[in-house]
């Protein structure tokens, strides 16, 4: 039913004006006319067929419609002043895409691999739709790039300024984040192990750690810049401080996760504290430690970027963002954000993979 509507919208676009200014209609552009008719046909057949076929035919129709709109946007008379006919095609593409996503989401495949592919495909498709709408809306309405650049513009900028982005990445991520992360998490882990050994210390540190991890610790950034200078050590120091307390609190919680039975067993084996620690407490604490590592992965990147707002040498993600925003070069800012996002996701993904590899025994992974 929805697909029939989409097909009707595609046909309607043939007669409606494409732009506020006078431009040749779709009939005058043979290749686009073919694409439009193909999309309409695919939608119509999809609406008639139903089932698995409808989804794949509909997806093909969506691709045709989206290609039509993107090709139309290359016309400078349409770019920025698109009107009803253009938006009808966009609507048809959007409608078709939503129907595909809904159909995919209601499928319940029996095989494990196909379920996993589906769980990956649905959000990817959804994201593609969002990016497509962003691109088309920004360019169709002619939103000034100072406010919001089209994703394609940011992507072009990303590709054309790779050397700069690479330098920023090394400065912020490799030097600031990774070093600070290692120091902060390592120190948190060690202090937690010591605090677990001496119960008095643990009882004092746990509430304090909870308190400190709730504080806006990134605020120490100006002090760290004052102490350690403009270069990466100050960023690493902020990151280390920000990551220390979550690690401490989580590890302390994890070290007390081992059950009484297991502890008694270790004692009956005559294990000394070191053996108990490496064979029982630390493995039992691993899920908690990884939880902290994952929380810290995002905190670390935020800490480093914020610290750069207080002064840096002339590179770094945070520095570039604030200066380019001041120069109104918003596409560069978005390129930097894309860089930060990719770095953050990759970092998080690596930690999650390591967690999979080391805590495969945990109930949450044994489905």
């Amino acid at each position, binding site marked *: 039913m929805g697909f029939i509507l989409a097909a009707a919208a595609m046909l309607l676009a043939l007669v409606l004006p494409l732009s506020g200014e006078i431009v040749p209609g779709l009939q005058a552009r043979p290749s686009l006319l073919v694409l439009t008719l193909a999309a309409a046909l695919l939608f119509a057949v999809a609406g008639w067929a139903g089932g698995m076929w409808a989804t794949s035919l509909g997806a093909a129709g969506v691709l045709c419609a989206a290609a039509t709109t993107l090709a139309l946007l290359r016309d400078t008379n349409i770019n920025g002043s698109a009107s009803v006919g253009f938006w009808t095609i966009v609507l048809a593409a959007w409608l078709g895409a939503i129907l595909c996503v809904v159909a995919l989401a209601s499928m319940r495949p029996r095989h494990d691999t196909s379920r996993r592919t589906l769980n990956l495909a649905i959000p990817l498709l959804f994201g593609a739709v969002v990016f497509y709408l962003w691109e088309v809306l920004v360019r169709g309405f002619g939103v000034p790039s100072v406010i919001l650049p089209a994703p394609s513009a940011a992507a072009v900028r990303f590709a054309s300024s790779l050397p700069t982005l690479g330098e920023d990445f090394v400065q912020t991520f490799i030097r600031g984040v990774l070093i600070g992360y290692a120091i902060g998490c390592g120190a948190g882990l060690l202090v937690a192990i010591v605090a677990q050994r001496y119960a008095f210390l643990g009882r004092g*540190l746990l509430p304090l750690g909870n308190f400190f991890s709730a504080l806006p610790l990134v605020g120490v950034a100006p*002090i760290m810049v*004052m102490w350690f200078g403009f270069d990466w050590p100050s960023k690493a120091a902020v990151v280390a401080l920000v990551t220390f307390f979550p690690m401490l609190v989580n590890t302390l919680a994890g070290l007390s996760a081992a059950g009484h039975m297991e502890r008694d067993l270790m004692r009956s084996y005559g294990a000394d504290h070191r053996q108990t620690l490496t064979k029982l407490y630390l493995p039992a604490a691993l899920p908690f430690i990884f939880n902290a590592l994952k929380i810290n992965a995002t905190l670390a990147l935020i800490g480093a970027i914020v610290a750069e707002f207080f*002064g840096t040498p002339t590179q770094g993600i945070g520095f570039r963002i604030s200066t380019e925003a001041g120069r109104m070069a918003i596409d560069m800012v978005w390129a930097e954000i894309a860089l930060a996002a990719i770095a953050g996701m990759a970092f998080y993904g690596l930690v999650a993979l390591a967690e999979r590899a080391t805590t495969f025994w945990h109930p949450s992974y044994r489905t």
Partner: protein
Amino acid sequence: MTNSALALSASGGGTLRQHPLFVRYAPIATIVLALIVIWYIAAVLMNLSLVRDGFEREETPYTVSELIEGTMSAERPLLPAPHQVISAFVDSVFGYAPTAPRSLVYHSAVTLSATLLGFLLGALLGIGLALMIVHSRVLEKSLLPWIICSQMVPILALAPIFVVVLGAIGLQGLLPKSIISAYLCFFPITIGMVKGFTAPDPMQLDLMRTWSATPRQVLSKLRWPSAVPFLFASLKVAITISLIGAIVAELPTGAEAGIGARLLAGSYYGQTIQIWAALLAAAVLASGLIGLVDLTERGVARQMGTRS
């Protein structure tokens, strides 16, 4: 396992040492004291060369005690001593009228209003998203992965853009900051509430079905009450994040008022004591806000008849 509490009570033998209050707070007090002592020592060590240079520049003879005293009262120390921070804090809280631009109360109020507005927006957004996700399988499959992904992005990096974009549209002041706060704090609420709304076990849901309850009744009578503990747990996380968001949003925007602006001004002019006082104000705000959520939680729990 050594049990030092046991050892303490054995050596002291007094009943005071087994008092629950003592057992609970003695370790905290000890560590806080130790931290303060370390802080003083660090202040002396870090400010030493600064003060010595000062004396040598004026070519006045000095003694060790004068030197140490100098490190405690330097005007722009590398690390101010705790009492300097406290006195600066007290001075700027009580020393000026609450509306004066030098008063920390004024700056805290600016940040607090952005925090609260952002928190409110974020909580509404978070709960709304959670409701949609719980009720729609399509959204759960397509939207939830992106919400999780959005948290791996350093969202604070967006702060300057938000302010530039919203400024271009004509929005200034409170709203851009609140939007950043809201963006930061909706996530824990969404995740917590999705967990909370799906917390009722299948038996209870089946029972609701045998009563032929509508989805709305299931929501109000079963899902919502079972989500309340999750709600408060995530609100506590969210309100601190909201405060961080509001403070950081003040940094790149060149705001004139607020704790973040205070930090930035302090770092430009090398006013270390001012930075520390602002940090202390942020800490007080954070613990106050968490305490407020905690109190509300207790009140709601009592209303709902839970025994704690």
